[in-house]
């Protein structure tokens, strides 16, 4: 197990794109976390003297301000913080639900497996957006329920991957050998099935985070997610679109941050997949 992790880390390090993505991503996350100490402006204070001010290092507002004079540096990084938090939390929910559902289906096999997979097939045949729109309509627009509902629908892919892996691992020769040598079911699960499941699960969990951040910002963009005066990258971009002809920085700053963050997460996830040698689903 140790050798495996070291191997993967070595392979990851030899991939310059993945390493660069990891550094940039860490920088964005560190900036988002430290923003309140770097720039003293508040995310909700209106500075009417500097409404829609241009970006510049010599002014108090490095990335400029929006129409209401709110500091864009602080608002964008607050939005980044919320987006990352929702991305991580919703991924954890998807991970927990998906892994248990997939492992149960793959482990039970037979009719139970068929029924469980049929349900997933039906659910994933529909555009995801219907579900989340309905969930937000029913539960109201709350950010806690938003990440819960995104997490609740994001588990489909994870369940399918885990189930497929469990099925194929169960048929491997080394499992047969372990059974033949008298290992208990518990030992087989702990020593053989779960470690071999870890690779794909880690990779898809990593690739799920940018997907969920994308969904969250999509819903916030449509006005279904984070509500004013709170900010997520999606709401900031929606605001910027309205102002783009006169004050393009209101769009470019949060748009640039979202694009960079998603790009880094994707490149890093792809690198991790290559390093762990997981086949593309």
């Amino acid at each position, binding site marked *: 197990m140790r050798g495996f992790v070291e191997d993967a880390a070595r392979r990851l390090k030899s991939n310059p*794109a993945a390493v660069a993505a990891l550094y940039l991503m860490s920088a964005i996350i560190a900036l988002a976390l430290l923003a309140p100490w770097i720039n003293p402006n508040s995310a909700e204070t209106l500075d009417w003297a500097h409404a829609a001010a241009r970006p510049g290092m010599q002014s108090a507002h490095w990335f400029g301000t929006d129409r209401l004079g709110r500091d864009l540096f602080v608002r964008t990084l607050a939005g980044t913080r919320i987006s990352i938090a929702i991305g991580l939390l919703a991924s954890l929910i998807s991970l927990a639900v998906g892994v248990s559902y997939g492992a149960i289906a793959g482990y039970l096999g037979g009719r139970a497996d068929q029924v469980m997979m049929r349900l997933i097939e*039906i659910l994933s*045949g*529909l*555009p*995801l*957006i*219907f579900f989340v*729109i*309905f969930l937000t*309509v*029913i539960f*109201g627009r709350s950010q806690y329920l938003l990440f819960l509902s995104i997490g609740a629908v994001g588990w489909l892919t994870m369940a399918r991957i885990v189930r497929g892996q469990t099925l194929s691992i169960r048929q491997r020769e080394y499992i047969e050998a372990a059974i033949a040598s008298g290992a208990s079911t518990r030992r087989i699960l702990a020593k053989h099935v779960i470690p071999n499941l870890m690779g794909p699960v880690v990779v898809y969990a990593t690739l799920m985070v*940018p997907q969920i951040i*994308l969904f969250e*910002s*999509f819903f916030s*963009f*449509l*006005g*279904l997610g984070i509500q004013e005066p709170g900010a997520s990258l*999606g709401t900031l*971009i*929606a605001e*910027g*679109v309205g102002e*783009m*002809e006169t004050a*393009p920085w209101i*769009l*470019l700053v949060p*748009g640039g941050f*979202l*694009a960079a963050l*998603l*790009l880094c*997460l*994707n*490149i890093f996830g*792809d690198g991790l997949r290559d390093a762990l040698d997981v086949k*593309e689903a």
Partner: protein
Amino acid sequence: MIRYFFLRLTAAVPTLLIIVTATFFLIHAAPGGPFDQEQTLAPEIKANLQRSYGLDQPIWIQYGRYLKSLAHGDFGPSFKYKDFTVTELIAQGFPVTFTLGVIAIALALSIGIPLGTFAALHHNTAADYVTMSFAVMGIAIPTFVVLPFLGLLFGVYLHWLPVAGWEAGSMKHLALPVIALALPPLAYIARLTRGSMLEIMRAHFIRTAFAKGLPAHTVIFRHALRPALMPVASYLVPAVASIMTGSLVVESIAGLPGIGRYLVQGALNRDYTLVLGMVIIYSTLLIGLGLLVDLLYAWLDPRVRH
């Protein structure tokens, strides 16, 4: 094969019915109703309105009535757009959304497949890396960031193309929305094609084709490409679903008069019939497409035919 196709076709009807039923009860179960926004409404007037739309009846009777009118091809009246029926609203907006979607998917296929093949044939060269870097960008960067950025560059700064507007579907107005919409599926298709092409090129029948002296283009286009397109075919349904979702934001950013806005607005306004109409349109399209993909599969891979 034809029998199988009809079997699937008849199976699509109950699926659709389940979707309609689930949506009907979900949206009716949501708190609030279509007339809640108008706060000045006197209780008697609200009661009258609800009676005239049949909302005072028990839910089962409403459901039965809805199905009955649906069977006659009538989606019912819209609650929010007072003088329109849902059929009229959809008939007005659908051509716009449909045009947008069809051009986008055509663009994604006609550029994505050659790009993926190109990258696979130049595996591990600079050309491959550049193509795949663009693919990652296309997949990672969301449509609602790409479209405003394109608009800023080509519209506001370069003045080449209009940022928004429809103008009876002129090519100029369609260009940016279609590109933004096509980019994610295009990138994904390029990646899928590259991956499966790399695998197929190592297969025995390709080695055999080369061994009997066929020129490279014959091997690639006659032998390799067809099986390599299987994953692309199975991606078509998700691709169209992603274009449908993308068209929600593209239409709102570019100010296009499509049906995208009705889904979100309808759900927020509790415009029951409008939401149901949209769900029916979208699901029918996706289910129908799924059937077509099955046929395509049989054509791409003779082993599937039965």
